[in-house]
């Protein structure tokens, strides 16, 4: 068997049915092996960044490892943004790149680049394969490392001569990496300590992050929250980990979080944080973040604990496993639901006052479509059953605020890196992984232009993705910052040329629609949802709409600009 055939065989053994890639000279042997293996469906993208994002969207929406394939040199470097995006959000993807033949490595050969060197800081781990007999084991390890512990991207760089070399295919049944042993089981003493803190709490808040989603812990989150009557707030990555429409949900916290979530966190006395890493967009000014709270922090990655905030009860372990254990303790102590209802009654009264004082809201305007309204309607019409991908910027924050995510893995969004151009290729991956589901990409007119070439990919695969462009003719989020903090010096936030997105859709053979009036929103959304085709809906929104509430960067989360 050749190395290239080994790669394809290993993919099959890992249960990989779809991969996203773009061929080239240094990966051509693997493409040849794929040609003879129709079981692995290859999606030809139009740019390798699209392949990495699509693999990422596949992984986020299905919980399985996404796979991208690229050639050496420029092919490999084009995946870098996608890899960094997956790294920041702990998404399991495996990226396979071709490399120049072993003998030419280091000689500045044609299309050579040191991709393992380039991606070292943005991968969980990476490999350069030097012997064909190592190839099956390395691919097995790559998948294993990507999906276990704190998940993340792994890159395998495979020289052309290794792809061509022959060897025996020995696929290991199990992986033993002596230097890599993630801690899944939490320390039980710590779990008990956590419970004791909760028992003493007067004003607790339950904060959930992306770790809840990647470990599949949302059932446990819900069980604990309902039993103990805890208010629940979510990071962007945690949205969907607890139902957004639940009456105990406070929505998202942080820079564009709700007033009541930020007030609750600022005033809580115990913060139970699970699978969240206290990003600066969440904490604002760290000294003023939950200043009077004892913090319990559950995370599988010990590095996340104590990195940004001081923690009183650190718990290293799998989020699901840790919450299961906590639930056991709660049940064992056996205080009934009624007890906890009574116990936190005052706290909830306070939260309700905050909720009533500044609910999430916007001003309606008969002349303009409000983006918030579009998302509210979209939630209503899809009943929260759709997979929503977003680009980055205002479109992303409005989505996080106004679409109340019901289920885990229904929000696909670049949280940590904030990658413009992520949403659409990610929606391709999400749709490939969820064929019958409604997949919608919420975009801005800026972001969509960053990977618009992938329209061809989506058309190739006949994917009925709905792209909703919230078009304000601005790079809206930067404009908003310039408006608020740079005395309206609108530097480089208005494109002189904005393409006709309806015509672009048509040029690719998709459906293009445009709406400009509020009364068109509902009927048009209904229409596109029912269409079994790729649709671009260009929604012309009020150009100066902002995302509020907003916490200025570096300020305390209680110092919100409200509307």
């Amino acid at each position, binding site marked *: 068997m050749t190395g290239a055939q080994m790669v394809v065989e290993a993919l099959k053994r890992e249960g990989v049915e779809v991969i996203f890639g773009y061929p080239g000279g240094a990966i051509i042997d693997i493409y040849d092996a794929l040609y003879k293996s129709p079981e692995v469906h290859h999606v030809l993208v139009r740019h390798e960044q699209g392949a990495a994002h699509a693999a990422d969207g596949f992984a986020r929406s299905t919980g399985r490892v996404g796979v991208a394939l690229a050639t050496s040199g420029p092919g490999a470097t084009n995946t870098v943004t996608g890899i960094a995006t997956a790294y920041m959000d702990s998404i399991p993807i495996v990226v396979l790149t071709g490399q120049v033949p072993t003998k030419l490595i280091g000689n500045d050969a044609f299309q050579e680049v040191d991709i*393992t*060197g380039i991606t*070292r*800081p943005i991968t*969980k*781990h*990476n490999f*350069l394969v030097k012997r064909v007999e190592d190839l099956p084991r390395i691919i097995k390890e790559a998948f294993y*490392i990507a999906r276990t512990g704190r998940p993340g991207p792994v890159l395998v760089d495979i020289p052309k001569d290794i792809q061509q070399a022959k060897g025996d295919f020995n696929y290991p049944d199990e992986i033993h*990496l*002596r*230097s*890599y042993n993630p801690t899944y089981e939490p320390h039980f003493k710590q779990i008990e300590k956590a419970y004791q803190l909760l028992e003493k709490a007067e004003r607790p808040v339950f904060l959930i992050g992306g770790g809840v989603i990647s470990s599949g812990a949302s059932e446990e989150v819900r069980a604990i929250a309902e039993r103990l009557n805890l208010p629940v707030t979510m990071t962007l990555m945690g949205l969907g980990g607890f139902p957004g429409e639940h009456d105990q949900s406070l929505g998202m916290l942080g820079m564009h979080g709700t007033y009541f979530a930020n007030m609750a966190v600022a005033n809580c006395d115990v913060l139970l944080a699970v699978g969240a890493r206290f990003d600066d967009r969440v904490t604002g000014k760290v000294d003023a973040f939950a200043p009077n709270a004892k913090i319990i922090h559950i995370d599988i*990655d*010990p*590095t996340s604990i*104590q*990195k940004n905030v001081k923690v009183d009860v650190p718990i290293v372990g799998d989020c699901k496993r840790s919450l299961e254990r906590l639930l056991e303790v709660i049940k064992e102590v056996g205080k009934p639901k009624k007890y906890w209802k009574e116990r936190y009654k005052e706290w909830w009264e306070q939260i309700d006052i905050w909720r009533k004082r500044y609910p999430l809201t916007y001003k309606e305007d008969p002349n303009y479509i409000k983006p918030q309204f579009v998302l509210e309607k979209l939630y209503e019409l899809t009943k929260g059953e759709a997979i929503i991908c977003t680009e980055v910027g205002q479109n992303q924050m409005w989505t996080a605020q106004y679409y109340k995510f019901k289920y885990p893995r229904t929000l696909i969004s670049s949280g940590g890196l904030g990658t413009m151009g992520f949403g659409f290729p990610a929606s391709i991956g999400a749709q490939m992984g969820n064929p019958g589901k409604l997949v919608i990409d919420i975009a801005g007119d800026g972001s969509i232009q960053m990977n618009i070439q992938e329209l061809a990919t989506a058309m190739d695969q006949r994917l009925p993705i709905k792209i909703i462009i919230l078009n304000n003719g601005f790079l809206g989020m930067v404009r908003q910052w310039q408006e608020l903090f740079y005395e309206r010096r609108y530097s480089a936030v208005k494109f002189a040329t904005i393409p006709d997105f309806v015509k672009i859709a048509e040029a690719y053979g998709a459906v293009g629609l445009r709406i400009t009036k509020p009364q068109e929103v509902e009927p048009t959304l209904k229409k596109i949802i029912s269409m079994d085709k790729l649709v671009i809906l260009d929604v012309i929104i009020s150009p100066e709409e902002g995302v509020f509430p907003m916490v200025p960067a570096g300020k305390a989360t209680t110092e919100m600009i409200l509307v």
Partner: protein
Amino acid sequence: MAERKCTLSVLVENTPGALARIAGLFSGRGFNIDSLCVAETLDPTLSHLTLVTHGDDFIIEQIIKQLRRLIDVYKVVDVTEEGDFVEREMALIKVRAEKEYRDEIYRICEIFRLKIVDVSPRTYVIEVTGDKNKLNAVIDLLRPIGIKEIVRTGLIAMKREKKTP
């Protein structure tokens, strides 16, 4: 928080790229490496690395955790925290050795038990082994005579065993 010096003893898989990963972790996260020594261990699949760095407790905790997070890193021990340890560094010092200085150099070598490992008509190369203080003391004494070149290895360290059974 007060800064402290920290000597880490790190066992790492003897694979290409492992050292680059460690060095990259330091540069990428803005930590500083004061000294670094690497060599194979008794087990040729593992390398031992002595790394000297500094920072407050928070930074050092981060450094240790981040190191442990690397897939190739087998074990990290903060030898400065774990109590008693021995540390050694070696230096080769090329010193001017014209006739009038030779006696003086000889005396210094004898006091500090140093070895002269190369002799030329105008220079000696002296081997110094010891802790940092000894090395610095030798260098200070030889400096007025005229040091032409110094190469230092950086620190290696090992925990002392408990003296009571």
